[in-house]
């Protein structure tokens, strides 16, 4: 899963586990480059960054140093680094927001409040940053260990911590020289204490292209797990001594990938070339050319194919990176090799901070009441989608007929709530509806059910929703009041069961 949980060691430290890296030009301003590093797979709703880790994005100019079967890319100086560090919280202060700083390549620092969607921007506007919990934009519907069976998105509804950097391309990257760049993200320990007997590792994790560790360096039955070893390597400068080991593993892995469809599409020379390119594991992008949802890996593929690249490569939030990669690995782009998943839970958006708000777990509210009347009698009231039995309703207007009909509820305090009928079963005495507008919630679904009992009946009203734009308490108060008042009105209408 891109780089999620990419080694035994990182599995124990989710706050240092990089999941993805993205590089693209801003859809809303092509003169600006956007880099996004995500960390902490399956992050909880209150997830925080570690206070002892550097979260860095590092760019270097890159040059093509070989084409065709000799394809290779080399990173050069200077390094352009964005380095984030985050504070610890004060145990005695409630509801505090984690704060952080970013050290910019020009030496300035910019503070950021974690979770503040506006982020922070330098006075000259050259740099804008964001850090906080976001919906995981990665999606994958393959489980490679299961014969490439297609599955639902394995990361559906998951969240990550995102670090977003947006900057003025021309002044930061100085694209008058080279226009090709390589970028990596890494998590490293903060300043080493001089008295530590054994220094900490140089880094905890790093990422260039997606799936280097989980797809390309892993997955060979019985083979030694090289992921932790790879994660300790210096990005842009993999140890010369270890290159043969990693290259050998990549070639073995690429051979297996090639044969997943039962036919060989790669000759050995091209496989070796592909392995060489993957050894130089940095995400290539050219901000002077178009970067789109389909341009990911185009630079590498074109160079291996012996032709100049045409796009800016990179990786957008909505790129189907898995299909692009798997199709390339399995059949060398001779035909699509597709997973069934085609987008993330919440696709990326065109405006800052580009990664969507975090997925909120649905909240369920259910209330029941026993009534001293038969189920049929209660259903005559409750089962009317346009029925005006709720006390807070001043007026209901219904449009349409049958399933899909819309009701507009005007409440006594002047609010308008619009709902759509999604189900009605007179036999089972259930009515289902979904919210269209009027309550600050999304994926809002309600069900009313009347169940006969030995004496009288039971009416159950259930609502499942996710707060949208308002705090949980605010929305919960609205929904709970709606339901409680509704139940009370039924009690008043039909009396209480003795």
């Amino acid at each position, binding site marked *: 899963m891109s780089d999620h949980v990419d080694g035994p060691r990182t599995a124990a430290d989710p*706050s240092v586990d990089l999941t993805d890296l993205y590089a693209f030009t801003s859809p809303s301003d092509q003169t600006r480059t956007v880099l996004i590093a995500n960390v902490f797979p399956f992050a909880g709703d*209150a997830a925080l960054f570690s206070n002892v*880790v550097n979260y860095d994005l590092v760019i270097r100019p890159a040059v093509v140093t070989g084409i065709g079967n000799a394809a290779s890319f080399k990173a050069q100086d200077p390094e352009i680094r964005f380095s984030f560090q985050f504070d610890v919280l004060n145990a005695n202060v409630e509801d505090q927001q984690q704060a952080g700083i970013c050290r910019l390549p020009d030496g300035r620092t910019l503070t950021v409040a974690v979770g503040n969607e506006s982020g922070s921007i330098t006075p000259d506007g050259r740099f804008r940053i964001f850090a906080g919990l976001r919906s995981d934009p990665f999606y994958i519907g393959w489980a490679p260990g299961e014969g490439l069976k297609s599955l*639902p998105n394995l990361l559906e509804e998951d969240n990550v911590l995102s670090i977003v950097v947006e900057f003025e391309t021309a002044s930061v990257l100085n694209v008058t020289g080279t226009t090709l760049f390589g970028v990596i993200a890494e998590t490293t320990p903060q300043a080493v204490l001089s008295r530590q007997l054994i220094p900490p590792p140089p880094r905890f994790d790093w990422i260039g292209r997606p799936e280097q560790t989980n797809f390309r360096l892993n997955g060979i039955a019985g083979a030694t797990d090289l992921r932790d070893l790879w994660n300790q390597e210096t990005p842009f400068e993999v140890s010369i001594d270890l290159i043969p080991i990693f290259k050998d593993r990549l070639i073995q892995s690429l051979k297996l990938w090639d044969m997943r469809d039962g036919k060989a599409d790669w000759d050995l020379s091209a496989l070796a070339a592909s392995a060489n390119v993957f050894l130089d594991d940095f995400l290539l992008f050219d901000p002077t050319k178009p970067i789109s949802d389909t341009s990911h890996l185009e630079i590498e593929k074109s160079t291996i194919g012996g032709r100049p690249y045409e796009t800016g490569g990179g990786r957008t939030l909505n790129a189907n990176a898995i299909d692009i990669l798997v199709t390339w690995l399995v059949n060398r782009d001779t035909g699509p090799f597709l997973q069934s998943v085609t987008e993330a839970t919440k696709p990326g958006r065109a405006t800052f901070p580009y990664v969507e708000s975090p997925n909120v777990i649905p909240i369920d509210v259910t209330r029941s009441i026993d009534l001293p009347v038969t189920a049929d009698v209660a259903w005559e009231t409750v089962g009317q989608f346009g029925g005006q039995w709720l006390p807070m309703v001043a007026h209901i207007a219904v449009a349409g007929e049958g399933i899909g009909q819309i009701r507009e509820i005007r409440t006594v305090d002047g609010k308008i709530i619009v709902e759509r009928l999604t189900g009605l079963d007179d036999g089972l005495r259930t009515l289902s509806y979904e919210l269209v507008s009027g309550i600050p919630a999304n994926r809002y679904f309600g069900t009313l059910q009347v169940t006969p009992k030995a004496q009288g009946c039971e009416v159950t009203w259930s609502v499942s929703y996710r707060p949208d734009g308002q705090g949980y308490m605010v929305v919960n108060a609205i929904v709970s009041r709606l339901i409680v008042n509704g139940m009370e009105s039924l009690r008043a209408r039909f009396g209480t069961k003795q």
Partner: protein
Amino acid sequence: MMAPPGISGELPVATAGIIAAINLNSSLRRSWRSLELWPNKPGTADRIVDEEQYRVQFYGDVTALDRLVALEYRISSEALKSADICLIAARIASTVHRFSEATNYIRNAEALGASDVLCEQLALSIDQAIGRNLDNVLALRQRIARTNQSIQNLVSLGALLADLGEFDDADRAYRKAIQNYRDVSPFALAGVCFRLGLLWGETAFPRQSDQAAHWYTRAISYFPNYSHARVHLAELHLSAGRLDEAQALLDPIAASNDPEVAWRLAEIHSAKDDAEAATRHLEAARIAFNDAIHRHELAFADHGAEFYLSAGSDFARARNLASINLANRPTLRAFELAYAAAKACEDENYCARLRSEAEANWKHIKAYRTSVFGSGGT
């Protein structure tokens, strides 16, 4: 963070405990809700087991055991078809000390093609927990630790060495685990510091209370919510007459559902001659132990026995629990506990039988000499 005596260089830096706590608890909430809403999503159950085990280990959270058992029940129908689910069930059963069931799950997992490495790891932990084939376990643990000096491998080795009475070797393994640690999770470091505290405060002979206190303090500094570390450090303060220090450790976690917290608070208040508070906390401890034993008898049999042998004042119950514990995991420590309970009940015949069995099973290990059955016993 300054090093305790005998270790040079600073202790490793870790993510602040407050951040780790927030991350753990919010991840756990989300994992459970994910399981409810998307039960077929792979990996969720595994994460839940990891996270709930942290709750057990660091918060003393008895309800974490309830949730794990509920998860096991939920997945048990699938356990016959999936190696992964068998392993999850094995981990849960082992956590609540249902070792024979855990072993059955592991066998099922093997039959379904589970990884040999994972099955061996779990089986090894069970053997160690119940004191079975310890020579073999030691050899394997040493081999594993030579190949991979991860904190987990070194701590497992250290714990076994401590059980065998090789206290200095255990100390070395634990210290190496700390010195080799190259990550930022405070949980791992807090855990090994606690182990060192246990080693020198309760296992080794002679006891070294100052060193134990140092390590418990380090454990708490890594993870302030560490319930067991607070309880054990409070016990040391209580023994030394430092009642205010002891109480200051436990008052912040008085609402914990860890029965030992109420138990020790009762002892502290008793030592302070505050009979009302002592009685209140003792009653709370009694209820908590009853409840925990009712729900997870095997997991709480040993601590329950210790409680009823002391503040709980029910020697017959202590003896019963100690016998259950001994039958489940016949370690030397379990024999000692059963012996203490039998002695309290003045059952000399049973004492003699226990002494004979302990000698037959454990005389060959160093820890036997300093046990109640060896030269240090009466």
